[in-house]
């Protein structure tokens, strides 16, 4: 019996090594491409929400990690810092709307130095297909309407969806989803207004890929 166990264990181990080797090889050879894909997506999102005249650096490689209750989660969130001639000019911050219809909605919002919103995108969500998923730009233009909202708009007490007496359009079929996003944007704006100056003093935690 002991012989059978050792023999089978050896065979199993051999297969484990072979399988791990294959996975390892493929991982090694696709790693840089996967990283490039992720980076490319990040850059394209940033380009959509931060106008090019507001920064002249590569924001995707200049970021700091932060945690704050205002960002809706205990996990680390990322702030991408934009500079113009080495002076702070704009930033994009990821945050979470914890009160979506179906769990967390991950968003990224971009502000200029005065606190005006230059754009917002939903990065990840699990909202109902066909109803709540209109927060995606692929599905509807709703998220685009956030671009250009001023700091006063965001600070005003009627920064709410229309159903709650505010001035933000919601979309047909869903109230909870847009309400959650609208609130998360306001929280992110509050966080940015409070911490804007200190953010630029932290050390860069996005490695330069090149």
């Amino acid at each position, binding site marked *: 019996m002991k012989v059978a166990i050792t023999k089978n264990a050896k065979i199993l181990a051999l297969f484990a090594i072979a399988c791990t080797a294959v996975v390892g090889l493929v991982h090694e050879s*696709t790693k840089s491409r996967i990283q490039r894909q992720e980076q490319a997506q990040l850059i394209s999102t940033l380009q959509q929400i931060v106008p090019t005249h507001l920064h002249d650096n590569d924001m995707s490689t200049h970021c700091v990690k932060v945690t704050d209750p205002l960002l809706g989660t205990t996990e680390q969130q990322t702030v991408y810092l934009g500079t113009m001639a080495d002076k702070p000019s704009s930033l994009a911050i990821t945050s979470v709307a914890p009160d979506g219809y179906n769990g967390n909605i991950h968003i990224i919002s971009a502000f200029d130095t005065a606190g005006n919103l230059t754009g917002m995108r939903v990065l990840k969500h699990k909202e109902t297909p066909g109803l709540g998923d209109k927060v995606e730009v692929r599905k509807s233009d709703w998220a685009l309407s956030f671009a250009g909202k001023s700091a006063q708009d965001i600070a005003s007490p009627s920064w709410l969806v229309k159903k709650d007496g505010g001035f933000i359009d919601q979309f047909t079929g869903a109230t909870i989803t847009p309400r959650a996003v609208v609130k998360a944007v306001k929280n992110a704006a509050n966080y940015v207004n409070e911490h804007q100056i200190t953010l630029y003093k932290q050390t860069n935690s996005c490695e330069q890929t090149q």
Partner: protein
Amino acid sequence: MKIDNEYKELAWQGLWKNNPGLVQLLGLCPLLAVTSTITNALGLGLATLLVLVGSNATVSYIRNWVPKEIRIPIFVLIIAAFVTVVQLLMNAFTYGLYQSLGIFLPLIVTNCAIIGRAEAYASKNPLKQSCFDGLMMGLGFTAVLVVLGGMREILGQGTLFDGADLLLGSWASSLRIEVFHLDSQFLLAILPPGAFIGMGLLIALKNVIDEKQKEKQPEVSPESIERVRVKFD
């Protein structure tokens, strides 16, 4: 001639008679979850197909060296390795689709159709036949996914091949067909219950076709069986 028949039988089994989606009802979780559009369905179908062919080939190749007692852990190991490889490749080359398939890509590991074929067929048959079996089973599964995905996409969004560029590259965005315009989406088709209903309809359709087929064929008169009575005195 004999070999030809064997392949024909394998194809018939995989694509129709023993279709993993419609008859064996294996792998329902990804089947129902990702078929909201034809692109997702095709993506997951192709991923499953790749894993199925790969795992069948490997299992068949090593079948004589694997002791019977530990074959299941080894099969699982092989399948998991293939799924991880496919997942990494999709992450690298079809990033958008990788994101929209989400958790269902790694879940291929637990698709019973794959270990089912490894255990029931590939572990007992030569390499070529096993590859072919994997291919046919995979195609059968993909076909069900695509048909269901197409049905749900037309009913739910009024489009076909929405987001095909995620799978096939940017040229494919011209494949998108707007069948009819919907002001509001037909939610039932997109949500999980729609998948169940659609699946039920597909199975029913297959059964109807089978019945019709049976009726058309002349009744083969059952050979009379002679009963022998043995009397013990």
